[in-house]
């Protein structure tokens, strides 16, 4: 079992409660975050897009009409954007599942 903890914070400026920031302690490497994303997206229909911004590469993953994940701009951090039409119980379940995957995503990390 991992003793990693994952904080899940609602972005304070998002009026609709759509944006949530996941931060693991101890911090996760981006490849570990991507491993958790891969598990989350398994079996889903999704799209992805990468954009270079300065030294960073922003990668977004979209499961249409349900959610979007953004990775890469802030080291060790993942942003979840719920879609407007996603129902609240599904949103809560998604956040719990994602936090669990991130908390467990330390295989192979020294």
């Amino acid at each position, binding site marked *: 079992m991992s003793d990693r903890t994952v904080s899940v914070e609602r972005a304070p400026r998002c009026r609709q409660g759509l944006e949530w920031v996941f931060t693991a302690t101890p911090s996760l490497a981006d490849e570990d975050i991507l491993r958790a994303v891969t598990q989350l997206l398994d079996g889903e229909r999704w799209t992805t897009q990468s954009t270079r911004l300065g030294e960073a590469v922003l990668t977004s993953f*979209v499961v249409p009409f349900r959610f979007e994940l953004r990775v890469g701009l802030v080291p060790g951090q993942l942003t979840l954007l719920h879609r407007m039409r996603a129902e609240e119980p599904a949103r809560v379940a998604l956040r719990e599942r994602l936090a669990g995957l991130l908390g467990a995503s330390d295989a192979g990390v020294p």
Partner: protein
Amino acid sequence: MTSHPPTARVLCSMEPAPYGRLLTAGEPLVFHCNKYNYWLQQTLLLDRSLGMREVMVDAAAASAHSLVSRGSDELGLTTPEERLRLASDTFAQFGFGTLDLTRITTSGGEAVTPTSHFGQCLVDERGSFQEPQNLFDAGYAAGAAAAAYGLPAGSFGAEILACHSVGDPEGRVALSRRDPPADFFLSHGEGVGNEIAPPPPNADTNVDELGILEALSGLDFSGNEEGLIHRFGVMLTLQFGSYLNRVVYEFVHRMVDRAGMIEPAEALLVEAGHRCGFHTLGGVMTSPEWDAVVRPQCRNEDDWIHGIVAVINALGYGTWRVEELTEDRLVVRAYDGYESRGYKALFGRASRPTDYLVQGGAAGLFNLIRVGKIADRPILDDAFYETVLNAPESARTELATCESMGDDYTSLVVTRGE
């Protein structure tokens, strides 16, 4: 993992126009966030007797009619179905939501918005409005339908049947033919500019404006599959400058005509601009995107001002140039802004300054950086806004010159309070 590409939208080309403007099918576009859209809309609707709800619907119809008409010509779209698709896809691309026009015929029908910026993003998840807020959606549907069937812009009336903002599960708008068509204003399109090339960016900074513009050009600012643009911690729209100008200047005229209240009208609109600067630009300056692109270049507080001015120059507001910057004062030259261009096209030369949005916006960015110390990452909530606004050193902007008055550029003079 397997990625599935999104379905392509039918859209007109969007080329950056000279001097920092954004144009598509001849329509000027500017980015605005939900917080500005909220504040502007509530300002316009403060006094019901002004009749601004109807103006806002008709202004949206005029802008949509222009875009769909010219855009259909540009793309060679000939059938109503193709043109209605262009209208729906553009609505989503610009962040207004999703708009189903498939049940619209030449005699009318019902337009549906499963998602809507104006219906859902002006309010937080706990609140709702007393009256529907999807006025833009209603007008857009009416104007788009008229253009799709090759009819004059005022050919459809729009009655709002439902809106998320009052608790409905979706937006619904009934369109019916007006016979004869309403004879309302048309979009001013690109407007009237000075065609004066701005000078190069101020060199007294560590910020590389061209590098910032290049980096931002790769960022996706299109509406997602729900037709919403979630970026910088806010919901953005790529709004029609022609819509904004029509509703803003009509509001001023009606305030003057009915109550002789030009100064209060202008003050309210400048306040909306100040909130735009605070929330939209504040969102930018506290975003991961800023941290990745701009913040590494900032070695002092002045660089933050140059950095946010560089970002503004990517948002469709024309070109801003920092002319003077001290601890207590900022002077910006604004070239080719949508407000003056639109005012001149609508009314000719102005007798007093008309660039309310940028007037408030310049003070907003100065206050965020100099007074609010945004580099320290404060929470940009309403309480912080009030604290900064009411601080003795809170800055105000005066317009020393204005393009709509015949000047070569609009000069924004921001001065810190005593």
